[in-house]
């Protein structure tokens, strides 16, 4: 097991390095002159040249990469070109918002999808399964902004129950008052994922229920409940739990469209704005954070999987 974990960590470090190079490289490819963005169009070429020299934009590529990486790791994330403010506090605030939203969504997703998936697996090919399978196929096919739009139309425009705009101003962080703003974005995010995780759980459950050891358990005369809970679920839920772990990280940084649709101030929205305005350091930082979280969660998911599966834990 130890070897398993260590190998994962080594892979993690290598992947992170590759990612940092990828991100840095991409931001290099952008045909933008940073000095131009910072100083604006009215600036003179001389001023831009001076600024470039001062900010170190002309140094050789490897040197800039190493500097950037070093600064990133130490938490010095520079200033936004677009907004002119330090990136770090902004990103952290947005990150917090995204984590809250992701947590909320996950709270909705997990019990529903695990339950439906297990149900569909147990009643394979009968009507509960058909209904759940059809439903999940539908939900994974609906693009997130379509779902969001529909929800807005129903709950905001028609029923007037929930706000269509989830933007938060500084003091709005008091969630007990403003929890309504979280509902629609979280439900929208949950919609798509529920379908996916339900399908994964269903497949896992079917595989387990058809396995010889379930046959052994039933033919030993164990009560059905024991067979399902002690024998089936413990095997069937391993894979879905690992996947939910990775999806949590994705929910943090990947909800670009949903955040834009609802004007929710999260990490994804920050990235989208940065991409649209060529805000290099912001692009680089926000994407690094998101991607790091995702890769890290993959490692955690793998380790979790290994812990839950005795074949790996005691190999």
């Amino acid at each position, binding site marked *: 097991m130890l070897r398993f974990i260590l190998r994962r960590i080594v892979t993690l470090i290598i992947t992170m390095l590759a990612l940092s190079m990828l991100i840095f490289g991409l931001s290099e490819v952008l045909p933008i002159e940073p000095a131009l963005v910072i100083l604006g169009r009215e600036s003179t070429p001389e001023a831009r040249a001076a600024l470039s020299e001062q900010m170190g934009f002309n140094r050789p590529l490897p040197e800039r990469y190493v500097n950037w990486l070093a600064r990133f790791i130490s938490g010095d994330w520079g200033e936004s070109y677009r907004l002119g403010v330090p990136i770090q506090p902004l990103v952290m605030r947005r990150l917090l918002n995204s984590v809250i939203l992701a947590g909320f969504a996950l709270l909705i997703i997990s019990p529903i999808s695990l339950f439906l998936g297990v149900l569909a697996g147990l009643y394979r090919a009968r009507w509960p399964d058909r209904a759940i399978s059809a439903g999940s196929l539908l939900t994974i096919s609906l693009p997130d902004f379509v779902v969001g*739009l529909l929800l807005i*139309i129903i709950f905001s425009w028609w029923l007037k129950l929930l706000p269509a705009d989830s933007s938060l101003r500084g003091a709005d962080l008091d969630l007990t008052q403003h929890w309504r703003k979280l509902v629609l974005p979280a439900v929208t995010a949950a919609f798509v994922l529920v379908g996916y995780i339900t399908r994964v759980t269903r497949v896992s459950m079917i595989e387990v229920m058809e396995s010889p050891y379930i046959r052994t358990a039933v033919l030993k005369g164990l009560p059905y409940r024991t067979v399902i809970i002690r024998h089936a679920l413990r095997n069937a839920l391993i894979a879905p739990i690992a996947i939910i772990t990775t999806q949590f990280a994705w929910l943090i940084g990947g909800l670009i469209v949903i955040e834009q649709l609802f004007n929710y101030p999260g990490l994804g929205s920050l*990235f989208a704005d940065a991409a649209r305005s*060529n805000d290099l350091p912001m692009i680089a930082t926000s994407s690094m954070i998101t991607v790091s979280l995702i890769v890290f969660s993959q490692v955690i998911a793998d380790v979790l999987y290994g812990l839950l599966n005795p074949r790996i834990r005691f190999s």
Partner: protein
Amino acid sequence: MDQSLEPVLSQPVVTKRSIWQRIFALRRNLTVLIGASILIFWVFIAIAAPLIVPYGINEMASGQVWKPPSAAHPFGTDNLGRDIFTRVLIGARQMVVLPTLSVGLAVIIGASIGLLSGYRGGWVDELIMRVMDAMMAFPVLMLYLMIIAAVGASAVNVVIAVAVATAPGISRLVRGLVLDLRSREFIAAARMRGESTRYILFREILPNTINPIIVDALVRIGYASFSISALGFLGLGVPPPNPDWGGMVSEARNALIITPTAPLIPALAIASLVIGFNLVADGLSEALRSER
């Protein structure tokens, strides 16, 4: 009587229906039927749109901004008074063509990488797969945005961006298939004939990967069309004047109060297309799986 030298009695052949027969038999499958109908409908629209539409895509009816559906404008008008019905129909063209092209390109790139990496093995394979993993660690949209931001938004660039972002997933799939096939004994038999790597990859391995690749590609076309519309929604899709469904949803979002159909109709159009692809992919995967 020396029976053992008699040829094995001719057994009744377990008839193997050809792939086309099985696909044809799918027409009885409800999900596939619905999915295929949707797709055929949109392809038809994409082809026939210029002949059907009552207005031009940029024809602005003055004073008719954000009007709800009426006899003159079945889907209403947008912020510039343009007929939404026309724009949706014409917009179908790029929604059908672009995803297909980009996934086609992704398959070529991804399958090649997967084939070579999987067969070669060793540190080359490790390295390539790490890079693929790194690329797949990005939420898809993030990758698109970065690429588009780098090279600018245009139809060609969108295709390239989607292709580049989709290829790693395909390469993973193909590599997995290759690894599995590589250990099969008919590959060992080929190596014992001294067959070249090229022969083994293309004549022995590749034919066994076609079916899974096709099914996977179909699902990805659905997601590609969804992603392309998401790009449009974010304002980074194919630039005007081409009517972009995603862009139309985004523009109409705030006019929701006046006319909810304005964002709703293009959104449903996108949804139907993705659903269509997924239904067909689901049904086809059943048919193709039993061939293994």
